[in-house]
């Protein structure tokens, strides 16, 4: 499935997220099963399948990692962690250090440090995204040498998920201590 075609939007990495939301709502208005409740049975089935595809495509396109995966795949480059080149040792080392720092910040309950570490990774992710925007926009660009950037994006995403989980934990314990 080409999620960009399903949504009827241009195939590019730097999608306009506001326009994407709007497009998703328009297509939902057209295909959501509620809008076909009085339709013919095969029409209802087709609308349900289409609405599901639209939601699935929306989920892919709005997430930078899955969007990049889709763009590589559409360019004929197979993606998936076992098919992509291993990350550079220097990068892995650096990420390990960041993770250790995060674990320490969590142990110390230092919310500010957690936020600073997250911001640093955010900045790195933005940098990678800028590069990907350029290479995906370049006609005839050889994409294969850029495949390792996908692994990097996943690393950043996982790191930020972890930050989010840590913040939840810190919030919950704070919530228990200071009753509103």
């Amino acid at each position: 499935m080409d999620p960009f075609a399903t949504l009827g939007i241009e195939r590019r990495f730097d999608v306009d997220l506001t326009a994407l939301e709007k497009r998703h709502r328009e297509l939902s208005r057209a295909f959501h099963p509620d809008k076909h409740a009085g339709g013919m049975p095969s029409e209802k089935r087709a609308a349900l399948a289409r609405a599901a595809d639209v939601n699935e495509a929306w989920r892919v396109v709005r997430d930078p990692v899955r969007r990049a995966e889709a763009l590589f795949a559409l360019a004929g480059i197979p993606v998936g962690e076992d098919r992509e080149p291993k990350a550079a040792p220097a990068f892995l080392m650096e990420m390990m250090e960041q993770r250790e720092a995060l674990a320490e910040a969590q142990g110390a309950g230092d919310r500010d440090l957690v936020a600073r570490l997250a911001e640093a990774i955010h900045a790195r992710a933005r940098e990678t995204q800028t590069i990907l925007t350029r290479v995906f926009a370049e006609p005839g660009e050889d994409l294969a040498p850029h495949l390792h950037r996908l692994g990097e994006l996943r690393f950043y995403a996982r790191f930020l998920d972890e930050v989010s989980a840590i913040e939840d934990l810190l919030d919950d314990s704070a919530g228990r201590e200071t009753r509103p």
Partner: protein
Amino acid sequence: MTLLEIFDPRARPRPIGIDLGTTHSLVACMRNERPVAIADCDQEVLLPSVVSYQPSGVVVGRLARSLAVEAPRDTIVSVKRFMGRGADDPETRRLGPYEFAARGAASPNVVRFKVRGREVTPVEVSAEILRALKRLAEDELHSVGGAVITVPAYFDDAQRQATKDAGRLAGLEVLRLLNEPTAAALAYGLDKRKNGHFAVYDLGGGTFDITVLLLEDGVFQVKATGGDSALGGDDMDRALAETLLLELGWRRAGAPPPSASLVRVVLDTARRMKHALTDALEVEASLPAASGEDRAVVITRERFEGLVQTLLERTGVACRRAMKDAGLKPEDLDGVILVGGSTRVPAVRAYVRALFRRDPLTDIDPDQVVALGAAIQADLLAGEGPKEDVLLLDVLPLSLGIEVGGGVVDKILPRNVTIPTGARATYTTQEDRQTGFEIHVVQGERELAADCRSLARFTLKGIPPMAAGLAKLEVTFRVDADGLLHVHAKELTTGIEQTVAVKPSYGLDDEAVEKMLMDAIEHGETDLAARRLAENRVEAHRIVTATEKAMADDPELLEGDDRARIAAAIQGLTEAARGEDAGKIHALVEALDVASKDFATRRMNRAIARAIEGKTVDQVTRDVST
């Protein structure tokens, strides 16, 4: 109020909205483009969700509640808390007067209450409540069409399926399962015509939901939902009841265990004290003490609030998570809507005010707002709703996944994705010559399958022996607009397929529901054949109407002998619908479906082309057919 509401046997069936609640239930319909709750002959709109199995028959509502003390085991209160739960669920071990049946051979994991020498499942008990509401609606509307039944947003797949089964058992055509907070937002949003981000805090009798949604020009888009399907006013009652039992000496070493009817009395007293504490600062109750005589116990509001504090904090954790999932901070909200009778408790309001840093909105009756929203949605689905373009976009409340090696869950669909939706994942064999795949579908946020809710287990068999890693199993998840999951598995190298409607682990399979329908006849409820016939006639009428309307709207899309074939199919079906043969009607409904398929496909392709501007119909058609 219309002056002349004379009975018309040909009255058009009217859609209804039902709030099937833990403590009470109600039904609503549209009148003069406004949703209204339907009252019984005593002008009461709230039907206590209590079912009492008496020697003379089944009693539902206020009378049943009054029988709860003398027949505590045969009177099921708060049945919603048992929906979709297994016999081994902690819920069955909480404070309560019931007797449960030992695991049966059929559907071994379903809770069964022992009442008056027979066993009933929560689905059957809920169906009794739905039947009572249906009768109430019929008295008012003469003819009831489809129903929208609300469920807590945080209900998992098994609980949703159980609710739908109950609707079917009650003889209702379930148009949609609608999430309670979304229903409330619909009633509220259409009433106030507001745009913006809203949080709906719904604390009912037995369930808690938090939903964050964006209202924008008629689209109600749920951004995140969270909650606890076993947390509500009942838990406040239980906490208070435990305190009362303690004060009365029943929890002292050597004291006899309180009888089932005493437990019922204490729980009811706790509920009344809770209600009284909304206005009073302290209340007193006289109850039988373990020593034999009655003793007065005084509970202050402060003490009660101390008892419910942990419960409130559990709601706070869910609220913070939902806000975070939605990417919002309290100050980004345009309003907080309170739903559910338990939000009348002053401590709850104070907690919500502090949590969201604003005064919550309470101007629609928190007991009625969900049913009113359901009535609006039922009307929309029946195609006779308000003229404005309204659309509800709801989400999956809990992640869905497959158990993989080491008991770890591979999440296939994360929580809070917009539904309907689908996703695929591919797995491979672990061992040489492995000829079957065991698939275990689970729901929940935990990493290990054992900590999640088991939805279904099935085995894809008959795969020819191959070396490990060669067979490719593709599992497809589809979640429909009711939030119900359908799983499809396919081995890609051989093409062996299997589709399962997810039910089994904790639900009733189709056979069990069928058997309940048969049992209902024995109890003089209904005639199954007559019901089938009526259902098939409704279906026939619906498909004929839809097809005729489509033909009138888009005559240019009829090609070749479409018109003649479809017209012949319509005629055949119309004639069959006048007859008594339910099977024949069903077959001809399918025949019309086949006859109109090409025409329907052309209509859908054009709709897709129109929705996606800038693309030619040919391009779009190619996308659709792949």
